[in-house]
Each structure stands twice: as C-alpha cells, then as structure tokens.
C-alpha cells in the first residue's frame, strides 16, 4: 500500500520529537511525506494537488503534535478546503472510500493522563472523535492513533529514538500490507501493533 503522511508542525525548528519522527520516515519507500507548513506557509492550500495526492495513496496519516486536544491549525484548514462535498463525501463523494486513516500524535502528558478519571478525562480515541467521524463520513477506515506520550519528558534524540524506530516500522508494515486492520481498529492506540511486528523491516533506520 502507498502511505501519505500529512505532517503539521508550525515551528519544526524548535521541535524535539516530531523532527526526529519525520526524519525516521523521510526516505521510507512507499511513503510520501507532505510538510504542510512548509508547503503552505500562508495557508493557501492547493486543493487540486492535495486531492490528487489523496487519490494516489491508500493510507492517510495525519502526523502532528497534539495541541489543545486537536491538530495544529493548518490541518483544520486542510480538512476544510480539501474534503469537498461531492468528492470526499455526499452524493458521488467516493474518492476516499476504502482508504485507511489514522493520526500519529505526540502529547505532552503521559499515557495515564488520557483516561477516564485521568488528568485529561478522555481517552485519545475519544478526543480524536472528530477525526474518527470525518473518516467515517468519507467512507474511510479509521484506526486508533499512534502515540508518543510524555514528550515533554523526552530530553534528547536518544530518548526519542525508540519511538522513531517504532513509527518507521509501523509505516513500513502498512506499505508491505502487513497490518491486521480489523484487529488494529479495536485497539486504543496503534502502538501495540508495532510490538507484534516481526523485526525485519529491511535495512533499519537509526543513527546510533
């Protein structure tokens, strides 16, 4: 399968986690990386181009830091403009039917914060419900998010590296169509899926 990563970070030069994650998948065969803030610094999104890219891929990943329980602004703008009625949903709106989509998110708080009764009161899946329902309306299969929690506690690249490697293995597995989508759909996050993957995702990425 072909994977499209729609990546959004407004100030990537200050990023400690997403920058490493993005570097980990940049050269992965079968993955197309779109750095939205770099492409559209003034938010002038080229809708036709984005639609062409969506059509050409099978798995759509929204990679971003989790800001105020949602995405950075440009991803909202992207949704508002690109997911047109009559194309993505509604009558004849079948362009995205059958495609898989999920979020790849970094959060400041630890996993324990995202629980009923936790600091943030809701689970990640619950907080991402708008994405879930958007995918549903567009006829896409929504999968739980890939999460890097407690990112504020990751001090340097060495701390981030295991997450980056896991992310790379996950996307490589999607490219190779090695994911049990039906099983994954019922999980809270995609992270356990990575643990079940065989270690052989080709020449491994890593800078250690």
């Amino acid at each position, binding site marked *: 399968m072909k994977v499209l990563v729609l990546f959004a*970070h*407004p*100030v*990537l*030069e*200050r*990023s*400690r*986690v*997403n920058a490493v994650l993005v570097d980990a998948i940049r050269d992965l065969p079968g993955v197309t990386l779109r750095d939205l*803030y*770099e*492409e559209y*610094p*003034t938010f002038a999104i080229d809708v036709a181009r984005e639609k062409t890219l969506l059509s050409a891929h099978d798995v759509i990943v929204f990679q971003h*830091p*989790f*800001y*105020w*329980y949602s995405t*950075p*602004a440009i991803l909202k703008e992207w949704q508002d403009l690109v997911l047109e009625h009559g194309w993505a949903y509604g009558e004849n709106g079948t362009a995205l039917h059958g495609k898989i989509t999920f979020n790849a998110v*970094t*959060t*400041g*708080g*630890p996993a*324990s*914060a995202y629980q009923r009764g*936790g*600091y*943030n009161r809701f689970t990640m899946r619950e907080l991402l419900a708008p994405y879930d329902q958007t995918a549903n309306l567009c006829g896409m299969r929504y999968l739980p998010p890939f999460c890097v929690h*407690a*990112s*504020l*506690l990751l001090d340097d690249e060495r701390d981030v590296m295991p997450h980056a490697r896991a992310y790379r293995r996950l996307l490589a597995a999607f490219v190779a169509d090695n994911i049990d989508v039906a099983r994954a759909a019922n999980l809270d996050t995609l992270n356990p899926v990575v643990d079940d993957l065989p270690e052989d995702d080709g020449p491994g990425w890593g800078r250690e």
Partner: protein
Amino acid sequence: MTHGPLFLCFVFLAASVLVVPIAKRLGLGSVLGYLLAGVAIGPSVLGIVGHEGKEIMHFAEFGVVMMLFLVGLELRPALLYQLRRPILGFGGLQVLLTTLVVAAASLALGLPWKTAIAVGTILSMSSTAIVLQTLNEKSLLKTPGGQAAFSVLLFQDIAVIPILAVFPLLAVGDAVSEGAKGGRPGWLQGLLVLGAVGGVVLAGRFLVRPIFRFIAETRLREIFTASALLLVIGVALLMQSVNLSPALGTFVAGVVLADSEYRHELESDIEPFKGLLLGVFFVSVGAQIDFPFIATRPVVVGALVVVVVAAKLGVIYAVARGLGLDRSARWLTAFALAQVGEFAFVLLAFAGQVHVLPPDLAKLLVAVVALSMAATPGLFIVLERLVLPRVTTGEKRPHDEVTHDGNEVIFAGHGRFGQIVGRMLRANGVGTTVLDLDPEMVDVLRRLGMKVYYGDASRPELLATAGMADAKLFILAIDDKEATNKIAELVRHTYPKVKILARARDRVHYYELKKIGVHGAFRETYGSSIELGIEAFRMLGARARTAHTMAQKFREHDSRAIDKLADLWGTMDQDAYFSEVKRVTGEAERLMREEAGGPVSRDGAWDDESLRKAARDASDDAEEPTAPEE
C-alpha cells in the same frame, strides 16, 4: 606661433579639462564643451593654437577611425545584416535627396551644376563623431531613432569612397584629375579593394584569434593594448593604401571581431584612446572656426548655416516618415543628423585639390560646416526640451475617445506596476477601465487584446468620460511622481467618494500621498523586497512559515514606523527628520528583536521550557502535568 608638441598637448588637455566638465554640468554635453574649448584656444579668442590646429585635426581624425572600430565590435554580422534595409534604404535616400535639394538650391544661387552637385554631396554628410558620441552619452543609440541615425551614418561612411572617386569628374575647367584612383586602372583598383577587405575579413577570422591568444598568455597588459592599437592602425593604413576609407576598414575589422572572445578586452583597450582623440578632434574643429572670416559676412554665414541645417533636418524627417519610423524616432534622427560632418572637411580639402570648388567657396563652406557641427548640441537641447516632450506626451496623437464602460475600477497607468494589479483584478472578474499615456505601451496592450485608452489621466474631462463618477476605486499606477500627486489631488477633490490606491515611488512620495489623503499608498519596490527577504531567510535555512512570520512582523513594525514618520515629514528640518527616522526605525528593530526572544515567536509551539519544567515536577511527584501540550 609655433610650439613644442608637449606644450600643445598641455593646452589641449588644459582647455578640455577646464571647459568640458563645466559644459557637462550645464547640461550642454561633452561635445559642445570640447568645441568651446577649441574656440577658446583658437586664433579667434586666445590665439594659442594657430595653423597647427589643422594638422592636429588630421591626426585626431583617427579618433573617428577608432570609434568605428568600436562600433563594429558592438555589431555582430547578424545584426548588421538585420540593419541592411535602414542602411541602404534610409542612408541611400538621405544622401541622394539631400544632395539633390542642396544642389538645386546651389544652382538657384547661380553655381555651375558640377559645383552644385559637389556642394550637395559634401553637405549631405553628417558627423559620425559628434552624433555617435552624443547618442551614446545620452543612451539613445539603442533606441529605434538611434539605430536609424547609426544606419545612415554607416551608409555615409561607405558612400565617401565612391564620392571621392567621382569628384575628379566634377572638376570645373581644365584642371588635371589626379584623384582617388591614384592613376591605377579601374580593374586593378577594384581588385585591390576586394583583396584588402577580404584580407581583413579572413585575417580577423583565422589569424587574429590565435595571435591574441598567444599575446594574452604573456599576461602583459600593455602588449595586449599595443597589439590592439597595432591592429587598428594597421587596418587603417592598409585601407588608405588602396584608397578606401580607413574608418570603413576598421569598421569591417570590428564587425569581424565582434564574435571573438577578445571583444571586451579590445573594447576597453581602445576606448580611452578613442575618447581622447575624439576630444582632441572636437577641440581642433572648434579651433578651426575662422571667426574673423565669419565676421566679414555674418549674415551670409548665419543664413547658410540655418538653411543647411533646416534643409537636412527636413529631408531626413521626410525620409524617416516615409519609411514608417515612429514620431519620436523620426525627430531624434532628423535632429541628430542635421549637422554637416567631419567627412565634409575631408571632401572639401579634396575638392580643393581637384579643383571642384573655388577656394573662397570652400572657405565659406568650412565655416558653415564647423558652425553646423557646433550647433548640434544646441539642436539636441531643443530636441530634448521642446520637441520630444511634446511628441512623447502625444500632442500629435489624439487622445482616444474614452467611453463610459461602467467599470468599478479605473486605472491610470498600465506599465509594469499597474499591469500586474490589473491582471489580478481582471482574472477575478473585476471590470477595469484603463488609461495610459505611453503610446507604445497602449499599442502593445491592445495587441494583447486588452482594452486600453490612450489618454492623460490628469485631464478632468477625460476622467469624467471614463466614468469616475460611478467608479468605486481609482488605481493610480503611473511612474511620474508629480503627475501622480496632481491626479491624486484632482480625484480627491472632484470625486471624494472614489477610493484611491496609489503607487508611491519611494518613502517621501508615500508621505506626500498620505498627506493628499489617498486611501492606500504602496512603495513600488517594497513588496518585492519583502518577498526577496523571505526567500533569503529560507535560503539561510529558516522554515517557510517562520520566514513569513518574520516578514509579517517586519511589515507591521515598518508600517507603524513609516506612518509615524509621515506625520513628522515636512514639520521639521532635514537633520531633525533624519535623526527621527533613525530613532523610529531603531525602535522598531529593537521591538522586533525583543519579540524574537519572547513568547510571540514561539507561536503555537508548546514545547516551552516552563511547560517542560512543570511536566518534570509533576512526573517526579507522580502527579499529572499542568497543561495540554506537546
């Protein structure tokens, strides 16, 4: 009076150095300066230079030869081929018609027909030296008019050869013809000419390049200069030996070398020599003017100068018009070529030798020719101050009949600035009515299928017929500062409901427009400077969004600063204003620097030290962090 050559050099140089910069400052051009310097040192005023002047002039004529070499270097053979029509057509007609007109007038004045034709031919020549120097100095050489003038001059330079050959046949009485052919039979002469020109072309193609490469490899600058001079002088001598014009020969050599890689080096080597020699040439022309002789018959000489210049001007204008040059080019060519040229001196001297002209007439004509040359800078002043402004603002071209199209936007000016705005608006379905004063621009835009009116937006009745009363927006995008202000005031006053957006040339013009009360003023290079700045940030490694954010911050601070300064402009003297500029822009930059280190530039990135510290504390206490975030 006889003086050593060093003293003469001193006099010529001193006169030039003193007079030329002053003439240039006064807007008279360097040629008139040199001529005046010549008059000053000549026999009529200071009398420092007497008859040596004539010899010096012959020597200095070599400046003309060098100039044609340089002109040739600029002209690739392909370009020359393109110019064949103006050279043969315009040049040929000009020489022929001028000769006929002047000859007819001379006949009417009672000269014998042979003499009349000789006079006509002599006066049909124009001054390559003065005209090319002046056109170059005024950057007019590449304009259509300049190119036309150049073509004519080129034809004249070539025409000198057959004229020299024909003159002996015009000899009056039983004088012995010992003219141009130098006693050689015609076929031999023809063969020699062909051989010489062919030799120059072939040598230029195949010999000069390896030789220059060899010399260039020695890295001896002065030897390269020497060989460049050697080349020019050698070609000139070769041409003289076969009775061809040296100027024509070096021109051919120049054209042949125009494609070579040494072109620029040759140019820069010969250029100073040419400049100096031409200067000396002009000085000696000035020194040659025989004022005592003129003083004995001022009316005759004066009238002749006026009539000759007027006749030449008229003929050239008519030919230019007949050949379809546009108005400004016609006038430029006619005014530029109206004088009689230095070749006339050569022809006059030669005509004297072969008894075509009686000595008295020759003396009179020398005075007329010299004065007409001296009149050229004056003619250029008339052309630039009186004729061209009228021609280019289109007194002759009637303003278009503007109709009320009911468009909501009216443009004044659709050059490189207004066009972009107009394209953007029209692409989005906004109706525009466009007025422009540049006839060429109007024609080009029309050819592109745009509806553009030729007309002056500063005329109230034109604005009215264009539909200003019903327009919403007036976009003022002409490049003339004064005209912009005038029109802005007019529109502000007459149509207070119409919003005005105006193009400002610079910061001060921006202030002026703000004072007038336009609704938006835009410094014409500001937007693109900001864009380049954004690209600079990106090339230095900044992210696109960060680069845009920094540019946006700069814009905000700068526009706040400039509006503050706009209020101050005109309320204080220059020094106080500039110290205020320094203070306000310094303030803006300080604020920007502070923001760069402050919370604003963090701009939604939650990865902030205070937040990380809180997270660490919370995790140490096994509690929850205190905020959302990455």
